[in-house]
């Protein structure tokens, strides 16, 4: 059935590359699930049902990966033979790290502020802007990547991961503050 050895781009019939058109990706995802999803085989044989669960799971995984700019970058790097150690490697860029520390402190001090939601909105706006900038930078590295550019992409990805983590913490704080309102 589904060729599990195909890479995610091939699976969706997309050219291998960092720039992916979100709406075409979503269209293809839906078209694929329309034929593979277990609902299509609810009355089928056990084998069909098993295969379709596996196929649909793979398509979901592929979609999640290609949809998210950070996951997509990591995936594309691994297709180019660069495996990152997500847990243990981190950027050494001091300027960037300093900036991150400041953002983090800002986030922490929010909890004590009077009108925290505006600041929160502003903060997550800045985080998103930084991520968008890095997305543009990494896209350039992936255009016709040589070793040097792949290493550069890897460094950008480290930073993206940082910011992504910070973004989810921002969301957590937001949830906490909202809960406190009630």
């Amino acid at each position: 059935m589904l060729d599990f050895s195909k890479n995610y781009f091939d699976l969706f019939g997309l050219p291998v590359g960092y720039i992916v058109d979100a709406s075409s990706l979503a269209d293809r995802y839906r078209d694929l699930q329309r034929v593979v999803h277990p609902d299509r085989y609810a009355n089928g044989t056990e084998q069909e049902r098993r295969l379709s669960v596996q196929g649909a799971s793979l398509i979901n995984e592929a979609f999640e990966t290609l949809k998210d700019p950070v996951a997509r970058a990591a995936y594309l790097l691994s297709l180019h033979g660069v495996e990152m150690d997500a847990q243990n490697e981190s950027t050494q860029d001091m300027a960037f790290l300093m900036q991150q520390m400041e953002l983090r402190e800002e986030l922490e001090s929010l909890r004590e502020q009077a009108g925290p939601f505006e600041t929160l909105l502003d903060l997550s706006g800045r985080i998103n802007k930084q991520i968008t900038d890095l997305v543009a930078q990494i896209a350039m590295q992936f255009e016709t990547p040589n070793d040097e550019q792949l290493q550069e992409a890897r460094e950008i990805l480290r930073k993206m991961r940082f910011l992504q983590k910070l973004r989810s913490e921002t969301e957590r704080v937001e949830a906490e503050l909202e809960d406190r309102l009630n």
Partner: protein
Amino acid sequence: MALLQIAEPGQAQAPHQHRLSAGIDLGTTNSLVATVRSGKAETLPDPQGRHLLPSVVRYRQSGIEVGYEAKQSEVDDPLNTISSAKRLIGRGVDDIKTLGSQLPYDFVGQQSSVPRIKTEAGDISPVEVSAEVLRQLSERAEGTLGGPLEGVVITVPAYFDEAQRQATKDAAKLAGLHVLRLLNEPTAAAVAYGLDKGAEGVHAIYDLGGGTFDISILRLNKGVFEVLATGGDSALGGDDFDRCVAEWIMQQAGLDENVSPGMVKRLMQAACTAKEALTQTEQTDIEVSIEAGESWQGSLSREQFNSLVDPLVTKSMMACRRTLRDAGVSVDEVQEVVMVGGSTRVPRVREKVGELFNTKPLVDIDPDRVVAVGAAIQADILVGNKPGDEMLLLDVIPLSLGIETMGGLSEKLISRNTTIPVARAQEFTTFKDGQSAIAIHVVQGERELVADCRSLARFELRGIPPMVAGAARIRVTFAVDADGLLSVSAIEQSSGVQANIEVKPSYGLTDQEIETMLRDSIAHADQDKQARSQREQQVEAERVIEALQAALAEDGERLLDAKERQQVDAALETLRNVSKDGDQEQIKNQIAELEKSCGFYVERRMNQSIQQAMSGHSVDEFEQ
């Protein structure tokens, strides 16, 4: 002389014969069944014309009563009359300790992980209570449709965890039903609503019933219903509103906590009546008889009522906000909010939902029936009556799945709101030289500490080949299917040895227990178990034969060469013969045999359909 035309055995059935199916809304308070007839989905009434079936079962020595009849005995026979079983299903003995004080039952037996209620007719688990409700409704459908159901779709709250889903499926199994799919209630409502109104874009479904609350955010796009996020509280509903009012009455009447089970039921009923009255009027009188012929009289205003239930309404608002955030959509992007469930009739609820979403909530489809109708539409498609239909539901897992790591922490493997089905693998290794087994504890929930999450199951992997510590690489795959149910498989990578898995569900009935219950209920109905399981295998064989035949008719010519076709035909023929007079075991083996020998064809077909789906697009699309 005209030749007689004789159809090949098994082919006599026309391929597009209408298959009977139903959608069942198994509610905390009320349940319904619906089905699609002549292209229209509708709920089915009982002979008295009533569509709702109270989810109440009374267990007596003389037999079992279900629905309105049972509900009448709630006050007089509270210990044997079980309502709101849905609040208990898939829960453990520990949960009952928290819920138990609110429930007027006698809980017994801690031998099993499943709590049981002591009744005149024996100790009953919530799964069995739900099975009775399901049985009653499926009989209603079969009576109306004039034949056995080939499959049903049963709805569950989107926020139900894995154990609660599994327990619901077990109940269906006990009732002898073939479950096509467990469908999330808000998704079912979205189907009924979306297809009715031709809606597109982002919608919210706010579903507040008797015992559960769900909020789902969906994107509707050309027949695809994509759930972006779901949230809720599987223990929040109209029952809790009643409890608030009942506590208020007790306070006013100067009653202490030690009231009899019958009194509790009377208080709850009076509270519920008052609550429902306040939906229409601003003020209502309450009268409750208190033990010795005395009674308490009072009056409750809507304003007072609002302040009693506001904490509950607020709780649901918080879940809405969190779910919107998870979905990554802002309030403005939500085009409409659909209200589902009896408790959305409460004016305060409508007001608050309207405020939050900045829009007037939609209440124009019957909030009682919409879930069952959606389930019926889905069942009709799944059972195979609408080949080529464009509708597709993509749902999510409501709570994160994790495994216990050192220090009692939960490491998330699959995070909440991930689209299902989903599979994730994790590698484990051994601690000690020669270690041959590993224990894994799977939990569900968002909290960091395992103790704060829900224990789902403990797995033991055995048969790991002896190696030095840390050398074994055991890849464990956790898969969640389209019903939201978990399965686990494991393989030792370097040797390729499949590790055996022994599952111990934390809160479910074991297969053994279900088997026993099935046997008991069959003995009860005076049926021969042997005959029954043989029949089940025959039905499965028929399903396999039909599926394969339909496939051959569609693309057998195109996808198979002569030799392959012969192989498939031969396998079909053998299965047909065996299923006619073989025993259960033989039929089962033959099905497996056929799946092996025709597997290549099934795979080829799926690939083909994928290629077709993709051929509509070309790579150029991306090069503009």
